[in-house]
């Protein structure tokens, strides 16, 4: 009985191939959109968390204020002395890099390039997992005296030196000349889409004196020794900084210590929200596709009134006509689901290549979209099907 009804449904879909295709187009697009959005979102999330995880699990970032990211909170900035104190007083900590940034334009001969200069110390290369391609890092004297020396990232070298060895050359940074002493190995694009190689690193004091004109340090990058518990290190760090910043016992921290896992979570929660939003928008189109099915099924019932009359006259039960139309709707919408899944696989594979995020097949969203499309067939097919089943055979046969 069910098999026969399925057969009937397939026959009638085959008889109206073009209309059937147009009917399911909405569901096809809806399913494809939902799956593609979610798949790409998952890929982006994965890319971000991979990127941050590659920084190493022993990295801590300390920023003033409670919010992550550039904030306008009035919490006091750190000083170079804070970094020094952390390194000296906490045994669990291997390296501390105070970081201060400034956007400037670099000039070499006829070429110039705008970028962000990072002021720090040699610990920055350790904490940030940077390796030298050529030259050297800073000497202690250079750091202490704030000498005009810098280490360039691969992009900056490309822009200013067009692939030539920059080590030993002088570039102009604002009013002063700066000697290039080292070149960093390329890291490529970050998960957030920024170019990590677009970097210039100078001693902290150089940046403070000659570029920012202040003693402030925007952030501390702290590397915890191998084999030491991150949580223990975080706790010691927090205690020390509270003490140095004179925070009373009943007051909240006015800075934030984050490990890479937390940083990853901060970023991935953002991408996840975006994924959910995009997925929801796509789901609306799936719903619209369902309404499209109902619309066409209603038209189809009217158009096939005579056919329904014939079926009823030769002895089809109300239930059988209902099932025929319902199954027709479900078969149509599931077919739309299957085509949508195939389309989504093709789209997300090519788009993930284009967006440089990994392609992650998510069985859950594929299955859920398929089931949802089938459910759409049931929900939006029921009303037209019932209308067909309840037709009066005499009236239906007389219908032109």
């Amino acid at each position, binding site marked *: 009985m069910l098999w*026969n009804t399925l057969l009937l449904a397939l026959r009638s879909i085959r008889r*109206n191939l073009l209309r059937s295709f147009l009917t399911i187009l909405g569901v096809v697009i809806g399913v494809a959109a939902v799956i593609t959005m979610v798949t790409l979102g998952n890929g982006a999330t994965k890319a971000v968390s991979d990127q941050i995880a590659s920084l190493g699990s022993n990295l801590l970032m300390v920023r003033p204020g409670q919010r992550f990211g550039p904030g306008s909170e009035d919490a006091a900035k750190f000083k170079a002395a804070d970094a020094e104190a952390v390194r000296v007083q906490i045994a669990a900590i291997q390296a501390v890099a105070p970081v201060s940034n400034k956007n400037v334009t670099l000039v070499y001969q006829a070429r110039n390039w705008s970028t962000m200069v990072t002021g720090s110390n040699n610990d920055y290369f350790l904490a940030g997992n940077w390796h030298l391609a050529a030259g050297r890092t800073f000497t202690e004297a250079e750091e202490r005296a704030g000498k005009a020396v810098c280490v360039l990232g691969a992009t900056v070298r490309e822009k200013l030196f067009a692939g030539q060895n920059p080590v030993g050359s002088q570039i102009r940074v604002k009013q002063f000349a700066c000697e290039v002493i080292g070149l960093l190995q390329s890291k490529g694009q970050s998960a957030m889409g920024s170019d990590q190689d677009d970097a210039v690193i100078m001693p902290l004091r150089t940046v403070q004196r000659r570029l920012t004109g202040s003693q402030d340090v925007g952030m501390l990058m702290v590397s915890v020794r191998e084999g030491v518990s991150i949580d223990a290190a975080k706790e010691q760090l927090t205690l020390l900084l509270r003490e140095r910043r004179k925070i009373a016992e009943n007051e909240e921290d006015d800075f934030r210590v984050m490990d890479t896992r937390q940083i990853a979570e901060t970023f991935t929660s953002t991408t996840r929200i975006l994924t959910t939003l995009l997925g929801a928008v796509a789901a609306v189109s799936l719903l619209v596709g369902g309404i499209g099915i109902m619309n066409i099924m209603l038209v189809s019932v009217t158009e096939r009134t005579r*056919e329904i009359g*014939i079926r009823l*006259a*030769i002895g089809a039960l*109300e239930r059988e006509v209902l099932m025929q139309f319902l199954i027709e709707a479900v078969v149509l919408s599931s077919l739309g689901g299957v085509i949508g899944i195939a389309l989504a696989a093709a789209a997300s594979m090519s788009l993930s290549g284009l967006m440089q995020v990994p392609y992650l097949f998510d069985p859950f969203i594929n299955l859920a979209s398929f089931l949802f499309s089938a459910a759409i067939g049931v929900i939006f097919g029921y009303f037209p099907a019932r209308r067909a089943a309840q037709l009066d055979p*005499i009236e239906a*046969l007389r219908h032109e």
Partner: protein
Amino acid sequence: MSQAAPAGPDDGALIRLNGITKTYGRGTAAFAALRGVDMRIDEGEFVAIMGPSGSGKSTVMNLLGCLDTPSGGSYQFRGVHVERLDRNQRALLRRHFLGFVFQGFNLLARTSALENVELPLLYRGEPASRRHAAAAQALASVGLTGWEHHSPAELSGGQQQRVAIARAIVTAPSVLLADEPTGNLDSKTSHEIMELIAALNRERGIAVLMVTHEPEMAGYAGRVIRFVDGRVASDQRNAPGPADGEDG
């Protein structure tokens, strides 16, 4: 023959109508299409129902075909009170005992002749192999061997009506209900169709109830019932007609 003299109640009559009335609408707008119809039809009879339009002949066909229910009176089909059956029970009765042929053929468009004929078997739940065989055989018996895979649009009117007849008889029904089966056909084709129907009646013992307004076609029937104003005006038996006797 089954046109033998009537006997007592429940003597194996195929159809028995007693005081059937049918009223459409309500109140002052009410229209009585049937005003008390009594009728008895035996197994294997060939009955033509005639009458001017509005006389109630279509209404009585719908009732006989179990497509509609009477407003009053009783309709017994082989002793079963049809007026007491619900919609689904009447559908089952149609499925197992009745075959329909319409003036407008009423075949499914874009569907092959074979699939059209298979349709009633599909609702009976017959397996595919038996469906194909039975449908092919029914098409052969109406002279359409070789046309199985043509769609209605590719067939002439006469051929379409033959497919419709094949669809009606594929289930071996007890009664064939034909509503002006030749109304859309030319004279020559009409006679061919009538000869086919008469042969099915004669050779398979299928009772035929046919509405027609052409006396020529009514001539094929063994009995002619005339309706006027919702009542049976006359009920006559035909002498064996010339067309009925000569061809076969």
